[in-house]
């Protein structure tokens, strides 16, 4: 659905993207993870044709990105982290503008507002909406057009956990409707919950990619088993035959409250990978 090969992009002398390769399968949620300034938004802008690039190739819907016509572009929904909402207009009027541009039936507006939980605020001017409501209005704008590809740039940045959960639900619903979702975030937990595949972007380079759990397993150097006993005591055991007797014994005695392996989170993997690089940079500094 989306392919990129050897994308390079520089702004003046600063290299922003260096040799980015992507192959995103249809009907999946792909997460591009990285800290601020890693080049996530730049990559979205390049794939969606908002920004040119120095070299490489981008293919969307089987066509080169610069060959996408109006009909193709109408199948792409883009939600950037900067709001872009008409503050003085109501939620309905905000959606009407884009319904008219995309040729969407106005009946779909109320339906979409209901879906994102803004039906009761339909007549409210956007300036009176909370941050979470504005994010949902933004999402409504892209969901209304029933996109085949959805680009979401930090969709839950700065939102409360409830709104975040609500938006996650809407995103997975879209995936279930065979929509391909390209998501950027620096929230690793969000990526683990939502994404089928992630790529870790740091200083313009993809440093690793794969399913979130695969990446976590790959960097599980410790291979430990953590046990929390009903007595409140925590035990850490080596993952191996030696620990088996101890675990069986605890199980027979019914003393185990929880037991789990100690795979790192995406966040710790990212820190491990980029932390090394930062140390190297400091050496040169």
């Amino acid at each position: 659905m989306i392919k990129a090969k050897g994308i390079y992009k520089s702004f003046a002398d600063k290299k922003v993207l260096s040799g980015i390769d992507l192959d995103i399968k249809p009907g999946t949620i792909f997460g591009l993870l990285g800290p601020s300034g890693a080049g996530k938004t730049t990559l979205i802008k390049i794939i969606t044709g908002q920004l040119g690039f120095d070299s490489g190739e981008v293919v969307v819907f089987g066509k080169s990105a610069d060959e996408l016509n109006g009909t193709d572009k109408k199948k792409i929904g883009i939600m950037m982290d900067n709001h872009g909402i008409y503050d003085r207009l109501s939620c309905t009027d905000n959606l009407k503008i884009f319904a008219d541009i995309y040729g969407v039936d106005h009946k779909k507006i109320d339906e979409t507002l209901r879906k994102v939980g803004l039906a009761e605020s339909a007549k409210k001017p956007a300036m009176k909406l909370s941050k979470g409501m504005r994010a949902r209005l933004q999402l409504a704008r892209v969901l209304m057009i029933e996109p085949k590809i959805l680009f979401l740039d930090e969709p839950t940045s700065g939102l409360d956990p409830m709104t975040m959960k609500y938006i996650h639900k809407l995103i997975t619903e879209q995936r279930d409707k065979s929509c391909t979702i390209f998501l950027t975030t620096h929230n690793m937990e969000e990526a683990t919950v939502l994404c089928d595949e992630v790529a870790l972007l740091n200083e313009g380079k993809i440093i690793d990619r794969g399913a979130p759990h695969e990446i976590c397993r790959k960097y599980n150097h410790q291979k430990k088993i953590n046990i929390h006993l009903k007595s409140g005591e925590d035990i850490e055991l080596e993952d191996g035959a030696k620990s088996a007797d101890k675990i069986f014994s605890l199980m027979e005695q019914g003393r185990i409250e929880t037991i789990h392996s100690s795979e790192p989170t995406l966040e710790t993997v990212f820190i491990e990978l980029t932390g090394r690089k930062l140390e190297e940079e400091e050496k040169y500094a």
Partner: protein
Amino acid sequence: MRNVGVIIKKQLKDTIKNKTVLIQFIMFPVMTLVMENAIHIKDMPENFFTKLFAVMYMGMAPLTAVASIISEEKEKNTLRVLMMANVKPWEYLAGVGIYVWTLCMAGAGIMATGLPSEQIPFFLGIMAAGFAISIAIGACIGVFSSNQMVATSLFMPVMLVFSFAPMLAMFNDKIEKVAGIFYTQQLRILMNQMSFDGIKTETVLVTAINALLGLVLFFIAFKKKGLE
């Protein structure tokens, strides 16, 4: 072309709720009606306030409105969202331009109600040309500015020069000579004649050069900054 209509419709809804832009369109027509009906001074030229305010309206309203609209959309990222929705820059600019020109013409129509009926088409023709030039200059400022604050600091002096120079020219010969290089002053002269008879080459030439300069500056600003 459908997107041009969408932009016009959007602007119409937005302006009703945007008092700062709305006041630009209605202030001078209302002032004209009030002054023409309330003040009658002996030996005052006929339709003095209509012609005075018409020139100020021409140099002020479209210029500030277009610059404010474009710079606000840039600042709030709504313009970027429109571009991402595949609205072409020319569709957006045409939508805003047509919308502002139409509203200004409606205002000019109100101002023209006090004029003798045979002068109305001529008056509206002058206003139409003046609005078009001001829109090009306003668009140039809007495109060049990254936000509303920059736009205001740019359009304020430009707008004051274009709208006040013709008025000040009535009281000072030196200012009149300087003001002669502005389209607003030339169109004021034309408005006083209210006829194509005896129209000076200078008037046509200065107005055409002003229009051309406005367009050239707009294309330079657009090429340099685009609508990002």
